[in-house]
């Protein structure tokens, strides 16, 4: 088999791009780890950049890539449902603060959407960009679903959610770690920061981290601000 025919074969099987997706993620994760997991070195963003570069280099279109990667993508649905487990586990915490949380969710969600859309609109962004931008403060899986329901571009939303998460972590982490008590390891994690403004990071370390009010159709996954 000559190399060209081999490449054509690889393009038609989901195996190649599925493997490449996992490989890119592992490389990106190793890089983030080497960088001390600073929020600015985001493994998801690096994996996306690596794969985007590889697609460009090989002249592969996104549809071909997605034929393979869709098997990973599919799991986003059940994973979103799975967020119900940590939410339920944190319910006692939510119930104790139900009014402050409800008010903070309502106002925070409104501010998040309105401020982003208004600023982008002032800079002349078209409707397609505004739709992708509006749900940027929700956790990525839900945000993409919302954008899709609104007829926007979910990939754009994914990148905006991750960027929001990085920004939120960069802004909050210094003050947060300073005010956190040493007896609460959860608060010392940058991902235990108020998740209202930015909620892209999955609870990759602790299943208990995202608390959220299910009364809201927007999964805003705020862990309650702690003082």
């Amino acid at each position, binding site marked *: 088999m000559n190399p060209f025919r081999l490449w054509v074969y690889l393009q038609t099987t989901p195996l190649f791009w599925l493997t490449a997706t996992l490989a890119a993620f592992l490389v990106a994760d190793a890089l983030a780890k080497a960088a001390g997991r600073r929020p600015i070195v985001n493994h998801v963003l690096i994996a996306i950049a690596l794969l*985007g570069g590889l697609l460009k280099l090989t002249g592969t279109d996104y549809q071909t890539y997605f034929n393979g990667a869709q098997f990973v*993508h599919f799991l986003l649905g059940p994973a979103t449902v799975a967020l*119900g*487990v940590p939410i339920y586990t944190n319910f006692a915490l939510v119930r104790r*603060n139900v009014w402050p949380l409800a008010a*903070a969710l309502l106002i925070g969600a409104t*501010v998040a959407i309105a401020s982003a859309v208004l600023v982008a609109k002032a*800079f002349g962004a078209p409707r397609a960009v505004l739709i992708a931008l509006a749900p940027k403060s929700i956790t990525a899986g839900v945000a993409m679903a919302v954008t899709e329901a609104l007829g926007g571009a979910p990939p754009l939303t994914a990148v*905006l959610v991750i960027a929001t998460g990085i920004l939120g972590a960069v802004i909050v982490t210094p003050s947060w770690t300073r005010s956190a008590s040493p007896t609460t390891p959860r608060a010392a994690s940058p991902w235990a920061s108020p998740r209202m403004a930015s909620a892209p990071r999955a609870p990759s370390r602790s299943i208990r981290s995202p608390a959220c009010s*299910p009364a809201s159709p927007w999964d805003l996954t705020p862990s309650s601000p702690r003082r």
Partner: protein
Amino acid sequence: MTRGFFILLAFQLVGEVAARGLGLPAPGPVIGLALLVVALSLHQRWRPLDEEALAESDLGKAARGLLAALPLLFVPAGVGVVQYMGLLREYGLALAMALVVSTVATLLATVGVFLLVKRLTGAKGEA
């Protein structure tokens, strides 16, 4: 594990059917999520379900496994941004400004409102 994964898929399926069938504005998986929380609360009513038991159940294990892999699951959709590089380049400044202003405003508003309402309602207990 199979049972746990089945429960998650079943809730997503019901969520999708509800979203499409009833024309609900929320995405199917999000409705599935809400229904799962409701179901767990109802279950708790007649059979106590502590945190540890839930974590060690089939559902708890499946959920933990999937959520640990959550960042990876965003990658395929995120790579789709290659189709929108033109838009990103053209409106990069607008998007950057929107993100910075909105993130700061949202953080301040959320924490502010939370603390204000907590003080007003005099809620007790740790936050």
